[in-house]
């Protein structure tokens, strides 16, 4: 019984939150990796682009709510996401046309493109803050919990409760669907394969008749879908605040690099690596050991490896270690 309690404890406080957080990071990381693999630069505007997509989603959610449209138990935001994606793609394509295209055609070094993306970051940040403001926005509605901690306790008779938020389930489900669609697209369709070829060797791809304009456009479209959905899921699960999104860029980069930048599957797994290690290392294990150890050996301290203040530091340290020993990432990078 105690052992099961300990397991439920871990499930409730580590596994489920890490899985959700990891999914959100994974979507962002695939976005970073796609841009890196095909457009060949580190996009520092990642977090702010995600916040732009989320902002549009929120605005549409509010609009639908004011019209009285809702999805019942599901959050209205799910209905608004397609509109968010649409505007996100428009925004990205226009940025590409007015900003990035020039440097791509001139074959500027990646560093210069990264600098340009900083300019885009400033602008996007300004646009988001001017339109929706810098403060916290909540846009979740519908049923909050699938399983409530207290109900779970009453149902099963365990000491530990297990809470399952609907946003967590939605996040994981949507991520699985989206990522499997993406991998199907990249591996099975002709366009997907030509994207891979373009990422592998640009000149060869051009020689074999692949249209670079089309590739770039599709990349931005996929990026827009990933950015909006990733951002909206994060906002639903936690809350929307432009500054948090900017900060999320850092673990997202860490995830993309840890998984091997340029490799979508690596980025997908990298998201979970980062999320799980962050939560594993900062969780206080006192209660866990209270369950599994006999009473005489009960620990006195919190048994926390690192205080939660260092949550970000964990992912960055992992990144630094990976960069030092396997610069191409855990899964070999630069293969789309």
């Amino acid at each position, binding site marked *: 019984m105690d052992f099961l309690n300990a397991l439920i404890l871990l499930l409730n406080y580590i596994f489920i939150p890490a899985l959700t957080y990891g999914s959100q990071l994974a979507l962002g990381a695939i976005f970073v990796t796609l841009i890196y693999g095909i457009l060949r630069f580190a996009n520092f505007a990642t977090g702010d682009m995600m916040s732009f997509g989320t902002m549009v989603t929120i605005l549409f959610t509010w609009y639908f709510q004011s019209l009285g449209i809702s999805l019942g138990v599901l959050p209205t935001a799910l209905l608004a996401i397609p509109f968010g994606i649409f505007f996100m793609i428009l925004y990205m394509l226009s940025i590409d046309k007015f900003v990035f295209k020039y440097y791509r055609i001139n074959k500027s070094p990646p560093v*210069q493109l990264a600098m340009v993306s900083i300019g885009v970051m400033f*602008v996007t940040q300004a646009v988001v803050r001017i339109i929706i403001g810098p403060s916290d926005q909540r846009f979740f509605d519908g049923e909050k919990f699938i399983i409530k901690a207290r109900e779970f306790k009453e149902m099963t008779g365990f000491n530990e409760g297990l809470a399952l938020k609907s946003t967590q389930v939605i996040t994981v489900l949507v991520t699985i669907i989206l990522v499997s669609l993406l991998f199907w697209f990249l591996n099975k369709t002709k366009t997907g394969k030509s994207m891979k070829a373009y990422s592998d060797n640009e000149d060869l791809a051009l020689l074999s008749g692949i249209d670079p304009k089309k590739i770039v456009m599709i990349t931005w479209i996929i990026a827009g879908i990933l950015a909006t959905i990733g951002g909206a899921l994060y906002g639903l699960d936690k809350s929307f605040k432009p500054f948090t999104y900017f900060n999320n860029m850092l673990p997202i*980069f860490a995830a993309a690099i840890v998984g091997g930048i340029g490799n979508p599957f690596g980025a997908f797994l990298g998201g979970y690596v980062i999320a799980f290690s962050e939560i594993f290392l900062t969780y206080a294990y006192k209660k866990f050991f209270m369950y599994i150890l006999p009473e005489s050996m009960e620990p006195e301290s919190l048994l926390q490896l690192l205080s939660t203040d260092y949550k970000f*530091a964990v992912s960055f340290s992992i990144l630094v270690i990976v960069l030092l020993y396997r610069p191409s990432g855990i899964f070999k990078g630069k293969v789309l």
Partner: protein
Amino acid sequence: MRKNLNVIAAYSIMMALIILVGIFQSWNIALSIFNLCLISAVMTMGANIQWGYAGLINFGIMGYTALGGLAAVLISVDPVQEAWSAGGFDILMSLWLIIAMVLIIRFILKRFNKSKIRTYSIAVIIISGILLIRFSAEPGIEAIEAVNPAKTGFLGGFGLPIIFSWIVGAFFAGGLAFIVGKVALGLRADYLAIATLLISEIVIAIIKHEDWLTRGVKNVIGLKRPAPYEVDLQSTDWFINLIEKFNSGKLELISNLSDRQVELNQLVIEGSSIFVKLCYSGLFLTVVIILLILTQKALYSPWGRMMRAIRDNEEAANAMGKNVVKQHLLIFILGSAIVGIAGAMLVTQDGLFTPGSYRPMRYTFLIWVMVIVGGSGNNFGAILGGFAVWFLWIEAAPIALFLINFFTAGMSETHALKLHLIESVPYFRFLMMGLGLLLIMRYRPKGILPEKIEIK
């Protein structure tokens, strides 16, 4: 003379703008803008050394700035005796443990050849070392933080004049840069950017949460000043006389004696804060000029030519027998040390250390905008960038307000859009920075004052 015409013109325009602020807004605002421009100029010089001279991307400027600030605290604050007696021993113990750990790792690295066993044993030493340090420092940290937590709760510093911290800040930042450089400089450019950005976040996390050292988010306030205090000035005779002499024309117009006294008091209060700011300006200007002379000398020395050679073609420079790795490390340390000076200057000027205020937008990316807009590789350009961008950063809100009022003049005062726009005026500075950066990168990629190589 003619060659430098654009430099002189650009700087004259900049000074004229600041003087205009002095005339139309107030001299207080103008001087505080000027002081922060000088500090920004020091930061951009540091970044320019790394990026302009050597082509190294350092997105960790925020971390070095914060370390400089930490130096200001550690140098100037008086030591907290109770805290030292409560937990000083444990902290020193952990310090020794860290040193021992580093020495052991060095020994292993030197003694044994590269192998899996070596890597794993180093990992084991690091992990067990961290656990040991945590275990041994914990009681000390708790004891220190328990000493009068509302006022101190940390070890304090050395109680020296804060000016010394400018040098110590440079050493702190240089030390960090040495470690970061050893670890990350081998990486490709964009990886280096990301790695340094993340490392600076780690530094900030440590400064924010190690309360025993920095008081963390509780902030350290009331740092000692290198300049006189306003309150003291207002009661010293020579200063009052000075102000009286300065404004004698204005004062004589007032016939009533008591009115004149009131007016004089008002002028003295205003004058004191301007005087203090002028003191700071003098100090900062000295630093900027010294650094400018040194960096200019370095740029046109054989060493500077070598750095440019390395930047432009690493392999060729390597083949010519230049030690690229060593030079990169050196320049990384030098640049970061300059940023550390700026960090200490910033805290000196503010008189307070707020770890929560270190954010990458303000302390990393804004500095980069300055370098790129000003002209990378050209010290005058970098300084001008620091001035121009900081000026715009501060004056963006008034400018935006003016533009909004201008374009929405036809709308009624209570129109929702107008109110919303006026409410979000502070964020237009991001827009201006972004657009400025994008335009400069597109149409003048070498910056306002581009690098020019003179062969004498």
